[in-house]
């Protein structure tokens, strides 16, 4: 009998620890998440059910340590040469159970990709932050604060705007950065963030790339305030809120790299975000495949299982085809990030834009798959007890975050059609 493990993965893209990671996370998901996930929507504010599952994954299984150096108690993933493909597997398996948890987990490393992934590792800063993650007996969350109230996706529209619309300011006073601004929507905010990576400008309105700054801010620094979590249509495990920075002072060394380099490596945050988004969406698609296969194998239509009805079978085939293609694409993109010597820098416009392209394709397909599965289930499709509708609400959000669909389209058009004015 075919299972999700029968969808094609380019074997060259699997990390050497793939089997171990898959088995560990899948066992955690089956035991700690899948039996409870139908209750997560009501747990969006307090995380009474969600937090213990996070702790098992982050702390007990040790996944919050993976990026950091061995001498600091970490597992050295940053230099291993397979950070992306190993992460892809973890993200996918977490998201198969709950993509809200997938993104919350993925984002603990998102800001840290600025300083923690070969070939550019800020060893001093990574070592300084490591104990927060490796020595803690609670789940530690990182949050990347980009979006701002006035322009939303504009911040992420790097190639068009060069950071010119960023309103959050960073001013150097002696050996400290003084940060002021207001951010919206960062994953892992709403009171759970322990460490922020904040997109700032050192000169408001400037489109000089040297004025783009990415600065780390511990959440307990005076002047940082996280609002109450937003209520959303899905992804209850991912808390988002307003975050205010009011004369927040952090050491000068907390700027990731410095003028010109922050914006350069920030594109890698985009690439990594796209890779993660693809993994989250693929995890959802694989679970939808499992659910709808079970439903259509056990539900009768005119004396035979529903899957034997050719109209239903045609839709089931579309679902399987979408999962198959997205599996190949997703794993391939993760492999491209690991093999940057072969495919180009992870922070290059080409790789970031191809990430946008793959993410858009996979998210669109995931939504189609969820709609199709839901339609096959007819009047039962929208029942919370069937899990498909939760996945639909969640993947719709995957499609729209990181600047939304039109931003993806514009970046792709710019790269492949040499558009000059978009």
């Amino acid at each position, binding site marked *: 009998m075919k299972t999700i493990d029968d969808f094609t993965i380019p074997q060259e893209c699997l990390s050497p620890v793939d089997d171990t990671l898959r088995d560990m996370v899948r066992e955690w998901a089956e035991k700690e998440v899948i039996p409870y996930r*139908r209750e997560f929507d009501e747990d969006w504010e307090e995380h009474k059910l969600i937090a213990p599952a996070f702790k098992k994954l982050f702390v007990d299984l040790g996944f919050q340590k993976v990026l950091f150096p061995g001498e600091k108690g970490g597992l050295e993933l940053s230099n291993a040469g397979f950070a992306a493909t190993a992460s892809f597997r973890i993200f996918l398996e977490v998201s198969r159970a709950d993509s809200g948890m997938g993104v919350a987990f993925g984002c603990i490393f998102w800001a840290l990709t600025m300083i923690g992934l070969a070939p550019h590792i800020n060893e001093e800063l990574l070592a300084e932050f490591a104990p927060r993650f490796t020595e803690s007996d609670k789940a530690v969350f990182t949050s990347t604060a980009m979006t701002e109230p006035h322009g939303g996706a504009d911040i992420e529209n790097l190639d068009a705007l060069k950071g010119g619309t960023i309103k959050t300011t960073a001013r150097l006073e002696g050996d400290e950065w003084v940060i002021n601004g207001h951010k919206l929507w960062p994953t892992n905010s709403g009171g759970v963030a322990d460490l922020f990576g904040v997109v700032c400008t050192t000169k408001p309105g400037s489109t000089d790339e040297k004025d783009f700054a990415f600065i780390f801010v511990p959440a307990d620094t005076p002047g940082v305030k996280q609002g109450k979590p937003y209520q959303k249509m899905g992804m209850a495990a991912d808390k988002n809120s307003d975050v205010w920075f009011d004369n927040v002072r952090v050491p000068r060394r907390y700027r990731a790299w410095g003028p010109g380099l922050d914006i350069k490596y920030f594109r890698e945050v985009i690439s990594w975000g796209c890779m993660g988004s693809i993994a989250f969406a693929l995890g959802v698609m694989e679970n939808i495949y499992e659910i709808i296969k079970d439903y259509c194998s056990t539900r009768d239509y005119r*004396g035979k299982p529903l899957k034997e009805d050719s109209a*239903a079978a045609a839709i089931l085939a579309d679902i399987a085809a979408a999962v198959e293609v997205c599996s190949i694409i997703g794993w391939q993109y993760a492999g491209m990030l690991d093999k940057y010597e072969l495919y180009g820098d992870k922070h290059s416009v080409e790789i970031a834009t191809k990430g946008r392209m793959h993410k858009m394709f996979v998210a669109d397909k995931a939504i189609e798959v969820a709609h199709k599965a839901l339609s096959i289930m*007819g009047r039962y499709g*929208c029942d919370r007890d069937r899990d498909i509708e939760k996945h639909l609400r969640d993947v719709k959000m995957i499609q729209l975050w990181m600047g939304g669909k039109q931003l993806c389209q514009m970046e792709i058009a710019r790269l492949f059609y040499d558009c000059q004015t978009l």
Partner: protein
Amino acid sequence: MQPAEIFPYPREWVDEEAELLASSIREWGEREVMPKRQKFDEDYENKLIGPAMKALFVDIGVQKLLWPEEYGGGGLNSPDGAVTITRALEEIGRADPGIGFVAASTLSALTPIVMAPKVNKKLCAEFAPLFCNADGVRIGSPILPEQGGEGIYGVAPAVARLEGREWVISGEGMRPASSGSTADLFSVFCAVGGTVGKEMAVIAVPGDTNGIRREKPYRKTGLASDRNATVHFQNVRVPKRYCVCQGAGDECFKGMFSWHALYASAVCAGSMLDVYRIVKQWADTRVMRGHQKWAERPLKEHPVDAAVLAEVAQEIAISRLVTYDLARMLGRAEVYGEPGSDELFTAARAVNLFVTDAAIKSSDKAMEIMASQGYARGGELEKHWRDVRTIQASMERLPALRDIARYFYATGM
């Protein structure tokens, strides 16, 4: 100008009385529902939805609309009242598709009793006071055939046998179209004869009849105002006269379903009108920058976004027109045939499928434009997205495709 006036509809079919009713409902929506609807999902104690429904069903009188005037009703039981009902349901759906779907299902459940020319006077006399003289909300709920079994329209959810002057009805785990936990009157499709056979009947069953057991309301994607739940009938006994339709094959089903498809489409058309209002407001006021200084302008002035906005408007415009066309066709049997005819049943299926698809697509595309504000609960849009998705699930897409193929391609499925 209101969205309802911007998008074209055949005004020559909508009389002054219909517009007055629509206007009352619009005021109700703007006063009683729209300021509070974002809290409906958590309104477990019915503190918000209950008063809003009472204002609509009782004070405006939506629960009376379909009953003949001589029984205290609004007299819209003539098929040509379909356009007025459509206009009313549109306005309800604009405010809250959940309340709209409860209203639509109530009307669908009553149709086999009240619809001219086959008015069932005995049952009107018996049941009209329940709806027309009540000072509380009264809800009807159809329990329709379900996908599966041997029948081409699915399996009857219940079996009924005559014992003397009573029908004895049994059905386990039935899923009504709506309001399983709250319905005052069910219209239940039954296989007649004690076993699942070829003869079907629709039997009216008051909600307080002995032998009815209701489960807790479903937790579902949307339609929070619809407290639907699984219902079990165990040897439920009702008088023989409560059978409102009995016949060979699927005549009963097709007639009732055609009306249900119209009513659900009207609710979705209304939802789409509000989606338009929401996304237009966003596109008017949200400024997006671009590569050039001149690109700093409202979202709607960017060609890529304008193209998506155009698609949203296109879905709405066409959906609204075909819904009114269906209403007109169902109301003119002398021209188009009976609502239960293969032609009209198929047209109703096709229109409903098109409109529910369009409702999903338009809210989906509007959400793309609004990005995170689209999926934030505070942004209003996502509720419509969830609600129309739930309506389409309830109307069942795969059986609809089979029904359409059966008529146009003479398939035997």
